[in-house]
């Protein structure tokens, strides 16, 4: 018979608080999440219309995971699973060097790391198409074992591979199997998982017709859901709003942040 690890809540509390969360460089955004950032061991879903900043936030988090331990960071690596080819290395480089520069100014001494070293801490996978995506998800446990210092997995976007070529029922089955495996790895190795998801329209829904894609059952799967949007009236075109739709820790609130050249920052 299989043995099951039954832990009591005290042990889990120690585990959950032993490592810091991944910071987004925007304090108000970190605050609404309730635990000062993106919790390790959780699956966090970023929702939003095109241009709301989903990819930018993913890139920022991939850079943030490298914050040195002296500054309360993780000094870890990130895995970026690119399914919609939204990733650009030049933009990531921009955000990464700005983030590291900021760490340097706070620390007051130069970091012991070259740009190449920092860039090599990002593992990038181009998983375009359903077959490639599934094949990589299948290999993921081995990858994580080979790279134990990965503390963040970003999938941009989760809906893209499933857009075509799979019946709805099978899609849900496959997605839930993949998410169970992903979460098992995330909980076991204390990794934060960030997924981006697109919006879709459901005509006639009482709570508003624009909802996250992949259906109601999916809405229930992720631990945290964050809706990003562009405010309708604003002078600053870089400003964005984040609404916490679902969380197991914090109540639903709104945060303001902006997307600058350096990455995600607090809005003035």
């Amino acid at each position, binding site marked *: 018979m299989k043995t*099951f690890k039954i832990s009591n*809540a005290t042990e889990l509390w120690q585990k959950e608080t032993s490592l810091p969360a991944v910071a987004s460089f925007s304090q108000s955004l970190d605050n609404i999440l309730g635990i000062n950032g993106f919790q390790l*061991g959780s699956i966090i879903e970023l929702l939003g219309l095109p241009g709301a900043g989903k990819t930018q936030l993913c890139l920022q988090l991939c850079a943030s995971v490298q914050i040195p331990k002296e500054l309360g960071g993780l000094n870890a690596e990130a895995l970026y699973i690119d399914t919609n080819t939204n990733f650009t290395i030049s933009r990531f480089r921009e955000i990464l060097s700005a983030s590291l520069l900021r760490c340097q100014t706070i620390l007051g001494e130069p970091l012991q790391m070259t740009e190449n070293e920092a860039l090599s801490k990002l593992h990038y996978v181009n998983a375009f198409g359903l077959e490639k995506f599934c094949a990589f998800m299948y290999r993921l446990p081995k990858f994580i074992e080979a790279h134990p210092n990965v503390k963040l997995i970003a999938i941009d976007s989760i809906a893209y591979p499933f857009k075509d070529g799979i019946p709805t029922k099978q899609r849900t089955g496959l997605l839930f199997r993949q998410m169970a495996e992903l979460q098992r790895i995330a909980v076991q190795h204390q990794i934060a998982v960030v997924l981006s998801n697109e919006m879709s329209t459901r005509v006639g829904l009482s709570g508003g017709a624009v909802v996250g894609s992949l259906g109601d059952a999916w809405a229930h799967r992720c631990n945290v859901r964050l809706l990003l949007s562009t405010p309708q009236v604003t002078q600053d075109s870089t400003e964005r709003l984040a609404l916490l739709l679902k969380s197991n820790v914090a*109540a*639903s609130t709104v945060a303001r942040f902006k997307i600058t050249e350096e990455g995600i920052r607090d809005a003035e």
Partner: protein
Amino acid sequence: MQKLKAQNFNNLSESIIRTLAQNRIVTILDFLQEDVSKLTSLTKLSLHDVLTIRNEIFTTYSAPLINGTALLTKVYKSRSRISSGIDSLDSITNGGFPVRHITEICGLADSGKSQLCFQLAINVAKDDDSTVLYVDTKGDFSAVRVQKMLDAQGYSHKDMASIMYRIRVVHIWTMADLVDLFKGIKNKALEIENLALVIVDSLPCLMFQHLGDDNKMGLSLLNILVNYSRFIANEFNVAIIYINIQTRWIDSDISDLEDDGESTSAYKEAAYIEKKNRCLGKYWESVPVLVLQLEKLDLSSKENETCTELKASIITSNVTKSNNNQCVLNLSTMGIT
């Protein structure tokens, strides 16, 4: 089916068992179905002996008879409800969740199901001799949140630690594992002292993994799980709560097919009917004896933004008989009250 074993019956020796096995009589069922006269000739036992064995089998393996008085005393001796610790919820459920039965809590995503579960786990674990088993299938159990709730309610660190110690969490990722876990509890291979409440958050997460398969694996596992759950609930006097989700289904209302043409299309408003649908299918529908639905009420009516109102309503129930089947719960940093 169980095999015939020599030690269970006085008249059966090892050699007789071997002879029977050569004649393809291996299990108890084979023995019962075989002609008695053939058995006597095979085993060289007297007819009377063979009949005794048959009777022995029937008395050991048939379902036991219990008379009404004994049943009633059993029910009176053990508690029949486990208090949720939330007064309004207790009042609509006639004193709490039914012990020895399966309860379901359902709702849309973000309707406060997990939060209610945390609160229930805390409230039950407050009692020194009750342990809660929290089966987490999607990594939703947040010990940080539980600690914050206890902190906001003003517990000392020592009390917090002992309450949290009595909340046992197990991560389960597949349906087969969940069945194995329940089997372990049933066989007492996995012992949890003073178990009072089992919360499974959430079942659809596991069941949906089998969606789209052509075989009926998921359903068969669900069936086994339900059987184990019922056994455990009865045997150990525990309440079992399953979390289910709801999905929304939209029908466009085709109210007037024979439109007489007077109303132009510009005047016609599209009417949509939104239906809520409990997941997990037809079989599951009738498994829980109590189904509690959670809904999030609009924030707009409330000026105090730190608190969200949840509406809890009983959809189906075999165990309550009160007229009032709805109540409003408050969700805040303190938890649910």
